[in-house]
């Protein structure tokens, strides 16, 4: 019985993240607009965009094969599965033992892989360029992610998300330990790269030559585009939830009482909102990096991960 409730809550929280994702992006855009001294679109604007895209026809190149049609579903599916694994409200989840943080990262890589193929499929040079760049960035961010995971796992004794969150809940002072802080910094940089935010990629660019993610999806329209966009917003939200609940897990429910769940919902929302505003402020402050400076940024992230792991050596 408990298992069924657990699975229900698991699916419920995945739905919550799924429905929340457009609002998170809307919030970032709104804060950015305000920081540009504009009124900006309301926070719920992305929902309207999704609704519109689902109601539009599609135009598909005759060169495209079934890969082009399948890619948006694969991207969306993997991201949804990932959101099933992340502790949003409760920890540990019933799915805790199904996939750990490595599996989560590789699931996201599967989505990237599929979208890169989708970009190559219509034979457009923009799509090829986007795919090539996206895979470059994805490949180079892997080592930094792995080291960040390693450092978290060393502290928690497990690579599974439930144990990681539980350990910080149990031992609050650990949240300030250098391994923890440095791993957070490393993961944050990688998150910016993986989700195509500034300074790695500009989500609002119109210039093909500077595009990464946008160039890959230039051929998509209608419901496919809606899925791809939604998946990328969902990925961002999942990363934010992950960052919030792995590094500052207080508020997560450890029992299934309504009160605990309500606290968990509020605290997670607040944490994600804070991170979203932080991203907006960061994006106002910094400019996009040239593509060939991105590896350097990822090298910074790698070194941070290395330091995070190394900091655990001396306490032994």
């Amino acid at each position: 019985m408990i298992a069924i409730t657990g699975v229900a809550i698991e699916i419920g929280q995945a739905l919550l993240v799924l429905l929340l994702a457009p609002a998170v992006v809307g919030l970032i855009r709104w804060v950015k607009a305000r920081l540009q001294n504009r009124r900006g679109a309301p926070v719920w604007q992305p929902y309207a965009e999704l609704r519109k895209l689902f109601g539009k026809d599609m135009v598909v190149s005759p060169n495209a094969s079934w890969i082009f049609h399948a890619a948006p579903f694969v991207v969306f599916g993997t991201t949804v599965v990932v959101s099933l694994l992340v502790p949003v409200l409760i920890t540990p989840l019933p799915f805790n033992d199904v996939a750990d943080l490595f599996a989560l990262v590789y699931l996201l890589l599967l989505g990237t892989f599929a979208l890169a193929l989708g970009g190559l499929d219509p034979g457009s040079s923009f799509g090829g360029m986007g795919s090539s760049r996206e895979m470059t960035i994805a490949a180079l961010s892997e080592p930094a992610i792995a080291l960040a995971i390693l450092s978290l796992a060393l502290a928690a004794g497990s690579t599974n998300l439930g144990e990681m969150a539980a350990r910080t809940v149990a031992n609050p002072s650990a949240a300030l330990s250098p391994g923890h802080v440095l791993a957070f910094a490393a993961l944050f940089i990688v998150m910016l790269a993986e989700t195509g935010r500034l300074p790695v990629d500009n989500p609002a660019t119109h210039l093909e030559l500077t595009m990464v993610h946008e160039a890959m999806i230039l051929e998509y329209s209608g419901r496919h585009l809606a899925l791809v966009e939604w998946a990328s917003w969902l990925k961002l939200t999942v990363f934010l939830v992950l960052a919030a609940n792995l590094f500052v897990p207080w508020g997560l429910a450890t029992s299934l009482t309504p009160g605990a769940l309500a606290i968990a919902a509020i605290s997670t929302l607040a944490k994600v909102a804070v991170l979203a505003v932080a991203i907006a402020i960061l994006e106002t402050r910094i400019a996009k990096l040239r593509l060939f400076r991105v590896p350097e940024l990822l090298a910074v992230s790698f070194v941070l991960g290395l330091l995070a792991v190394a900091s655990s050596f001396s306490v032994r």
Partner: protein
Amino acid sequence: MNVFRKILRVGIATEDLPAVPPDTIAVVRDIDARARRLLGRAVAIRQVDAGSCNGCELEITGLSGPVYDLERFGLHFVASPRHADLLLVTGPVTRNMEVPLRKTWEATPDPKLVVAVGDCARDCGVFAGSYAVVGGVDAVIPVDVTVRGCPPEPAVILQGILTALGRLEGRR
């Protein structure tokens, strides 16, 4: 950090839309109610320069700035006609741009709107009769709304787009 100090000092720069002389915006075709309902809140704009002198482009650039801020109406520019709902076409259609313009129109998924901006886009303006131009925009693709002016002000262009969406009153 100076950036943020300046942001605070300036405050919100966006202005309300002024009233527009009635004859500057002409609705050429009936705009499909479905399109209006569907695209009312979120419209992606693809700008096509069919041979303009770039005067209109200068004005269009103003749209995304803080003063006119088209994003508050849920409008934004996109990089591909595949993503677009509305084509913002400027200039007389030159012979070289005739095919690309039609291709852009074909590449835009339905339902879609076309707004012709500037006198040239309406009737070729000063370029009328030149051997190098094909004609106004509606000689090549069906136009929904025309915005007059040489060049039209950003506010007028914005009104034109909103007219096309059947939302003249501009919410805020």
